[in-house]
């Protein structure tokens, strides 16, 4: 096994591209499932059952639309008798604006994770989101999107800073890294190649093969940029020397020439800027780091954890759990011209994605096996948009840029409180302040008061429903499922014994919204 991993990791860029057969979604998904079955079998793992429709519809909405489904959407899906209704739903969600919006947020988190830690950087977030939005809404292939990012014009001296002020720009990727060549080298290799070179900035990597010289050779591609030491400079006088290809290693009497990760020297004969040459190499279909990293990232978005985990840490000491699956997805991504939706279709069509999160055997407990669906934290945006969906809260937004939200809205307050510096959604933790806000805060309180809640008052006041039907509707609104027999009994007893059935239903709704089942994806 390790030998195979080493072999896969060691693929050299100079090697000619292997001929890969282009598979259909169904074929690729079947192949992934076949590989998993083989690995479960050899590891003695008994996978969880296939998810029920209720479980699946909630997960799919959260993963593709960034929110839970409405009651009507759940009912429609549960009532659909077509055999292929799961893939039909995938297609319809992939076509929705909600998908573009959700993917925008996910990729913003992936590409500029540090943006929220500095107040100056925060201003750049809406522009970055608008840029991502335009990429996803027009279906730009992933390689072209990354190429755009890596080659965006940054000459503020030439254009008076127009590019940086643009309503839609990937410039935040550079600005949060202060436009420093070393930060950009680390960010590029980590975000797009899955290689953590950071350690090699100051010394040869202690556990890996990266040498300090290799790090700075990559940084040399960015040596034409002037580091942003203050904001004024960023706005007005950042000049890029497009042909700069050398950089000196700080505190060492040595300069190095730009070279790709494995040491190959670029072809400079084409009169292209250093960043353009770098972008060509990074985004090439022949660059195995690039396609593997992309496939691993998309896998992690849907499965909670990468086949290489952490998602951006490909190294000999951190082998892939299922290298053949990863290679298959990477190859197919290239074969399908870097269409991310192809990966989304394939992954969501696999049995491994569609497993239940309910653990039925101890062998399913290690997330490394992907033998049951993971239980994962929501992004703050997923959480608030789900709360809004469940409670019938109308979200006003600004038409000129839906990503600019005023700091005073309930949404902004929520996003701030639930913003997580954390890493893996499988390790998501809740703070006391978050718990208090959900339990006693104004927003949830209004949503669970008979006077103010759309959903609740609609259900309580609707004359033709029995208490049991009211209960069931509240469950569908919050958890996208009907209550179990024991839940039904406990809740119904509570409602029917109360003096005011409306207030008792409000209590049930409060409990539903505060449950981990509501606040997590599973």
């Amino acid at each position, binding site marked *: 096994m390790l030998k195979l991993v080493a072999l896969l990791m060691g693929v050299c860029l100079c090697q000619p591209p292997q001929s890969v057969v282009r598979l259909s979604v169904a074929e690729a998904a079947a192949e992934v499932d076949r590989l998993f079955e083989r690995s479960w079998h050899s590891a003695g793992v008994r996978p969880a059952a296939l998810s029920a429709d209720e479980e699946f519809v909630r997960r799919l909405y959260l993963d593709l639309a960034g929110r839970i489904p409405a009651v009507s959407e759940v009912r429609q899906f549960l009532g659909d008798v077509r055999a292929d209704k799961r893939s039909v739903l995938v297609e319809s969600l992939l076509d929705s604006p909600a998908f573009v919006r959700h993917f925008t947020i996910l990729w913003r988190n992936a590409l500029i994770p540090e943006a929220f830690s500095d*107040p100056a950087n925060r201003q750049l977030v809406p522009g970055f989101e608008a840029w991502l939005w335009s990429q996803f809404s027009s279906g730009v292939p992933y390689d072209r999107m990354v190429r755009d990012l890596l080659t965006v014009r940054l000459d503020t001296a030439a254009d008076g800073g127009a590019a940086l002020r643009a309503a839609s720009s990937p410039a935040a990727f550079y600005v949060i890294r202060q436009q420093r060549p070393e930060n950009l080298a680390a960010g590029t290799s980590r975000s797009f190649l899955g290689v953590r070179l950071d350690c090699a900035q100051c010394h040869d990597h202690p556990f890996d093969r990266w040498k300090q010289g290799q790090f700075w050779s990559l940084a040399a591609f960015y040596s034409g940029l002037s580091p942003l030491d203050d904001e004024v400079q960023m706005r007005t006088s950042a000049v890029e020397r497009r042909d700069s290809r050398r950089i000196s290693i700080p505190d060492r009497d040595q300069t190095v020439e730009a070279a790709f990760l494995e040491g190959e020297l670029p072809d400079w004969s084409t009169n292209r800027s250093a960043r353009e040459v770098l972008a060509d190499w990074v985004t090439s279909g022949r660059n195995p780091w690039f396609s593997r990293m992309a496939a691993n990232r998309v896998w992690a978005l849907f499965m909670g954890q990468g086949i290489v985990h952490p998602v951006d840490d490909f190294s000999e000491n951190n082998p892939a759990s299922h290298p053949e699956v990863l290679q298959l997805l990477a190859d197919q991504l290239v074969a399908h011209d870097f269409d991310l939706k192809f990966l989304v279709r394939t992954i969501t069509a696999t049995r491994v994605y569609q497993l239940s999160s309910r653990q039925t055997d101890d062998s399913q407990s290690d997330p490394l096996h992907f033998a049951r669906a993971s239980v994962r934290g929501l992004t703050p945006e997923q959480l608030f948009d789900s709360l809004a969906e469940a409670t019938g809260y109308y979200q006003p937004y600004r038409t000129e840029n839906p990503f600019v939200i005023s700091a005073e809205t309930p949404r902004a307050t929520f996003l701030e409180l639930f913003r997580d510096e954390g890493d893996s959604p499988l390790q*998501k*933790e*809740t703070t006391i302040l978050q718990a*208090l*806000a959900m339990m006693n805060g104004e927003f949830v309180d209004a949503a669970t008061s008979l006077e103010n809640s759309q959903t609740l008052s609609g259900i309580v006041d609707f004359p033709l429903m029995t208490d049991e039907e009211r209960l069931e509707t509240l469950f569908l609104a919050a958890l996208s499922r009907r209550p179990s027999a024991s839940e039904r009994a406990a809740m119904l007893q509570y409602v029917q014994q109360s003096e005011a059935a409306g207030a008792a239903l409000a209590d049930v709704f409060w409990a539903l919204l505060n449950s981990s*089942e509501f606040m997590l994806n599973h």
Partner: protein
Amino acid sequence: MTMQRISRRRLSGLSGLSLLGASLSGWLPRLAAQVQQSGQRSGRSCILLWMPGGPSQMETFDPHPGHENGGPTKSIETSVPGIRIAEHLPKLAGQMQDLALIRSMTTKEGDHSRATYYLRTGYLPQGPLTYPALGSLVGRALQREEADLPACISINPFRALSPSAFTAGFLGPAWSPLVVASETSADAEVSFRVRNLKPAARLSGGEVDERLRLLGVLEQSFLADRPDVPGRSHVQSYERAVRMMKSESVEAFELEQEDEVLREAYGRNPFGQGCLLARRLVERGVPFVEVSLSGLTDGAGPGWDTHANNFEAVGDLCGVLDPAWSTLLTDLRQRGLLENTLVVWMGEFGRTPKINENSGRDHWPGSWSAVLGGGGIRGGQVWGAVSDDGLEVRENPVRVPDLMATICRALGLDPAATNLSNIGRPIPLADHGAAAIEQLLV
């Protein structure tokens, strides 16, 4: 195929399930008993007086009268012969026997954001590594198992300079500071509240308990088959939140229980009353409390950033700092808490020794002051010295990791003890190469 990976943060079992599932009334009396017992606390605590913006060393603990860089600020005698501090801190001067002044802090970080991160975490911001704030590190290391208040409480933080320097970083949200903000009423009464601590007024106590019982039903059925970290953490933090809501320890926030004369002595302002709250929290066993002095009113900006009008502005802030801090020391001493409570005073950097054209001082990381006092510290001394013009450290330079190591040691912690970080690398409490200042430690 089998590869073992260890969950980074272990959570203490499924205790939450039992609490939420069981009748809440059952464990309330038990909590009350615990609170009474915890009156005699044994552990150590730390109070950090955080000065956002970077206080001027020249107008506080390292005055240079007679030199043009010293400006108009005079120095005064203290209770320790030979040690003189700025005239703005007369009450504190009387407590010098319990304070150790460090006059040789030195860093290269003159940017608010980076410097704030550095001084509050002990590390420079570095790519994907999210370092925990000192309070989270200390809180986690010193928290008692049965505590019903959070391990780290931050009073009136001014976070805008570096929001990530106010988080638990890779320790995880369970250790993030509980933020408490002051509110000053029209008649200048300062009070503190934890947001959302009280359920809506229309709900009776019985109804709140019923809601929690229903929640327990849901949690039990969901978590029984899904024993993963996110769900367990969710229940655990609800349990902690409920425990706090119901705990008698939250009476710590009710400052009106205090003697009027004492409240007056601390100063009737957000910082003064914040210091009083800090004492009340430490008294109830909270291992780390920080109080920020950002300005003279609620929610004011980083007042120590005195680029203009430095002398008057620092004088005004010291008018708040001096009575609050000196009363805090006296109060802790009288209650027998001082020997176990370390009090730290610092900002992210100092101010330029040269006075600018606006009678201001600008950012100066090269040579500035910080102060340690109380538990674990040998007071009545000065460590390090700067040149006559204040521009250079002349003796015993102290780097940030050295300061962190000294704080750890004063609290009985090993600075080399590590936590596993978000990138899987063990990170020591104080950075590699840190050397505690032995001469300042008891």
